[in-house]
C-alpha cells in the first residue's frame, strides 16, 4: 500500500528521465555514501531533499523521510553515543554519560542511512513502477527479474483487501478480534491460515497463467512504449558506472 502510492506524477526533468538513468544515479549515491565523511552525508541528504522539493515531490518525500529516519537516527545516537560503553565516556548529568567517538560513529551510520533513504525516496516518488518495468524490458533484462519487482507492488493491495474480507467474514461469524492481546493473537492466527493458503493457491494458478501467456517463453519481450532515452543519458549511465567501479576499487584497495 505504502509502496504503490509513493509515486507522485509530475513533469519535472527527474520525472521524465529514463528510469535506468535514475537507478544508476541511485546506485552511485549508495556506493558513494560509504566513502563520504559524516558532515558530507548529512549535507548531501539535505541537497537531495531540496531536489525533491524542486521536482514537486518534496512533501511526500520529506514526511516519509522524517517518519522513517527519525526513530532510527534517534536510536543510533542514543545507543552509540550514550549506552554502548566506550573508553572516552564523559559524565553529563548523574548517571547519564556520553562518548564523542560514539556520537561520531552514530553520525556516520545515521548519515549513511539518511542519504540512502532520501535518495531512494526521491527515486520511487519520481518513477512510476510501470515505467521502470518497461525500461527494464526495453533494456532486455530478464522478464523474471522485472516481474519480481512488479508483482509485490500490484498484489499487495489485493492481498490487504483479501485480509480485510476474511477478517470481516470471520467477525460476522462471531470471531472476536479485540480484547486481550492473547485473543488478538488467536484472531491473527485464524486470519493467517486462510490468507496464506489462498495466496499459495493463487500463486500456483498465476504461474500457470503466466506460462500460458508466453511469459519467459523467450529471453526478451517486445515493449510497445519504451520510456524515452537519450544519448546524453546513456553517456551519463556509463560514466556513473565507471565512477562506481573506481569507488569500489578504491574501497577495496584502501
Amino acid at each position, binding site marked *: 500500500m505504502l509502496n504503490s502510492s509513493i509515486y507522485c506524477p509530475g513533469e519535472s526533468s527527474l520525472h521524465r528521465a529514463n528510469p535506468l538513468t535514475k537507478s544508476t544515479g541511485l546506485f552511485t549515491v549508495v556506493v558513494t555514501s560509504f566513502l563520504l565523511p559524516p558532515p558530507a552525508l548529512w549535507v548531501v541528504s539535505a541537497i537531495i531533499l531540496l531536489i525533491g522539493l524542486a521536482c514537486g515531490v518534496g512533501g511526500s518525500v520529506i514526511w516519509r523521510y522524517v517518519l522513517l529516519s527519525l526513530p532510527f537516527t534517534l536510536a543510533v545516537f542514543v545507543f552509540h553515543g550514550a549506552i554502548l560503553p566506550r573508553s572516552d565516556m564523559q559524565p553529563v548529568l548523574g548517571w547519564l554519560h556520553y562518548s564523542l567517538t560514539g556520537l561520531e560513529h552514530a553520525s556516520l551510520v545515521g548519515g549513511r542511512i539518511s542519504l540512502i533513504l532520501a535518495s531512494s525516496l526521491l527515486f520511487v516518488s519520481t518513477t512510476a513502477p*510501470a515505467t521502470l518495468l518497461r525500461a527494464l*524490458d526495453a533494456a532486455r533484462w530478464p*522478464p523474471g527479474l522485472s516481474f519480481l519487482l512488479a508483482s509485490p507492488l*500490484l498484489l499487495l493491495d489485493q492481498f490487504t483487501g483479501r485480509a480485510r474480507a476474511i477478517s470481516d467474514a470471520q467477525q460476522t461469524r462471531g470471531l472476536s478480534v479485540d480484547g486481550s492481546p492473547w485473543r488478538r493473537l488467536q484472531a491473527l492466527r485464524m486470519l493467517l491460515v486462510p490468507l496464506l493458503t489462498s495466496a499459495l493457491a493463487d500463486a500456483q494458478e*498465476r504461474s500457470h497463467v503466466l506460462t500460458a501467456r*508466453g*511469459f519467459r517463453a523467450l529471453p526478451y519481450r*517486445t515493449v*510497445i512504449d519504451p520510456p524515452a532515452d537519450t544519448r546524453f543519458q546513456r553517456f551519463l549511465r556509463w560514466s556513473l558506472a565507471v565512477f562506481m567501479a573506481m569507488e569500489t576499487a578504491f574501497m577495496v584497495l584502501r
Partner: protein
Amino acid sequence: MIEVIDLHVGFASSDVLKGVSLRVAQGERLAILGGNGSGKSTLAGWLAGWFSGGTHRLTAGGCLWNGKPWDDYTLVERAATVQLVGQFPAQHISGRAFTVAEEIAFGPENLGLPHEEIVTRRDETLAACHLEHLAGRDPFTLSGGEQQRLVIASALALRPKLMILDEPFSNLDPEARSHTLSVLNALPADVSVIIMDTNPDTVLGWANRLFVLHEGKISEFGNIRATLFDPTVIATIGLPAVTRCFLEIERGSGSAENLSRDNLPLTFVEAAAILRRSRSA
C-alpha cells in the same frame, strides 16, 4: 484438433476423471456441462496442457493437439495455440501490468511480436470486448465481471486456435453474457471454443455440440436434445429455464401443440416460435 484419449486423473484421495475421451475438430463450438465438483475445471486444465504434475495424478491417457502432446510444443507455440480462461478471474490477471491496456498487450509482448502488430491486437481487443473506457484502470480494481471480460480479452489477444472458458458467465450480467457469446461467435471459423458451465441456459443456442460430465465420465447422447432429456442429466443439471416453464404450462392446460421431448423449446427463440404459432392458430 484436440483429442483427449481415455484421460484418468485424480487427486491423492479420489479419482476425478475416470476415462474421458473427446475429439474436437477445428471450428467446433462445444459446451461441457457438469455439476459442482464434476471435474470441469480439472478437464479444462488438462485440455490446455496446464497440468502435468503437481497435485494432479495422471493414471492413464492424455491430450493431443494435432497428434502431439502439449509437452512437445514450445511455450511460444502453446501460448499462440491454446488459451484457458479460468473460473476465478482475479487469479488469471498476470500481476505484471498496471493498466487494462498493458494487461491485454502482455501476452503479445511476451511472444516478441512486432510493435505495430501488438498495438493493433491491443486496440482491436479493447474495442471488441468493450473495455475501451477501462483501458487506463488498474486491473485489480475492476469489478468481477469487468475482470472476467479482461481475462477473456487477454486470452483473445494471443489469437489462439483453441479457446477454453471455464464458467465464463458466472460473473457477467445478461448483456455482457450475450456480448461475450457474440465475441466468441465472431472468432475466425477455424478457432475451436469449449465452454464449461453448470447451466445449459446461456450456451444452448450457441453450442454445436453438448457434452455432459458426470461421475468422471463424459457423454454426448447423439444430439443436444437427447443429451438434455437424458434422465441422469435432468437429475444433475436440470432442464433449461424455458423448457421448464413450458412443461409447467403444459401441466396446467392443454395447448395448441402437443409438446413432448421432441419439440419442447430449449431456447427463447424456439419458445417464441411456438407461442407465435399457437397464437395464430
